[in-house]
């Protein structure tokens, strides 16, 4: 079985007010080294698939069609083989 771990975040060019608010919260706690904070989504999918290459192509298509909106978001993912 294959597990896909997907991160979806707003593009750099898109304002992330939620991330900015968390950054200023960290700053007020004294974590003054935090220069930037972006908030996104983390998804874990398990696929009935054994071929990692095929899984990569499928997950790419899923991200493009539904899991991320290419107008505002970008995504990265890792594919790992896991025990079923």
């Amino acid at each position, binding site marked *: 079985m294959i597990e896909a771990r997907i991160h979806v975040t*707003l593009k750099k*060019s*898109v*304002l992330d*007010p*939620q991330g900015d*608010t968390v950054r200023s919260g960290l700053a007020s706690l004294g974590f003054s080294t935090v220069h930037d904070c972006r908030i996104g*989504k983390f998804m874990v999918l398990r696929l009935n698939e054994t071929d990692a290459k095929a899984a990569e192509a499928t997950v790419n298509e899923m991200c493009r069609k*539904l*899991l991320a*909106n290419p*107008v*505002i978001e970008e995504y990265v993912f890792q594919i790992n083989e896991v025990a079923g």
Partner: protein
Amino acid sequence: MKVGVLVFPGTWSHQDFAHVLEDVLGTGWGYVWHKETSVAGYDCLILPGGFAHGDYLRCGAIARFSPVMEAVIRFAKAGGPVLGSCNGFQILCEAGLLPGALLRNDSLQYRCRWVHLRAENVETPFTRTLRPGQILKMPISHGEGRYFASPELLAALNANGQIVFRYATPDGQIAAAANPNGALENIAGICSEGRNVVGLMPHPERAAEPLLGSEDGRPLFDAMLHAALPR
């Protein structure tokens, strides 16, 4: 004239639209459940506000895959008039019928209040009754209404006259103070290249009779009633 009001699980403004169509305008209408696969018999479609499919993943992202949306896309591609308000606007963007996307308000607050809009395009099936620059008072009620488009898309929208409404001061100034959500260039509503698909964040259905404090949503419905007739 028969208007189809789409209903997804989580839609909440369909009864407000139904009330305006039935009791204020006295026109024919019907609900279209999201599992329907045809919109035959309707001259105009409305996608109301709410939280379709719980707005899971992103606003409108799952609604776009409801069976009815294929019929809505065919209807729109054939030139049929389609209006999306609030969550309906978000669904039309996710479905690719309107360009751009709607993001979380820059204030991070859910904003529920009156706004003023300036009419920028009066050549759509829903704005033909307006004068260019006319100011309309309507309510908004949303947490994710910040319109976003890439710089290239924004330039194209301006060049093509696809910006239909901008948030304005009561005297018509496009100012940051009048912008309730951080939308680029104060954009409150846009239309498709063909002009027949219009989306806006405000709620015309909640401003269509004097009792509610504004009748400024009414001209959009009056325009719609004539949209199916030859001009």
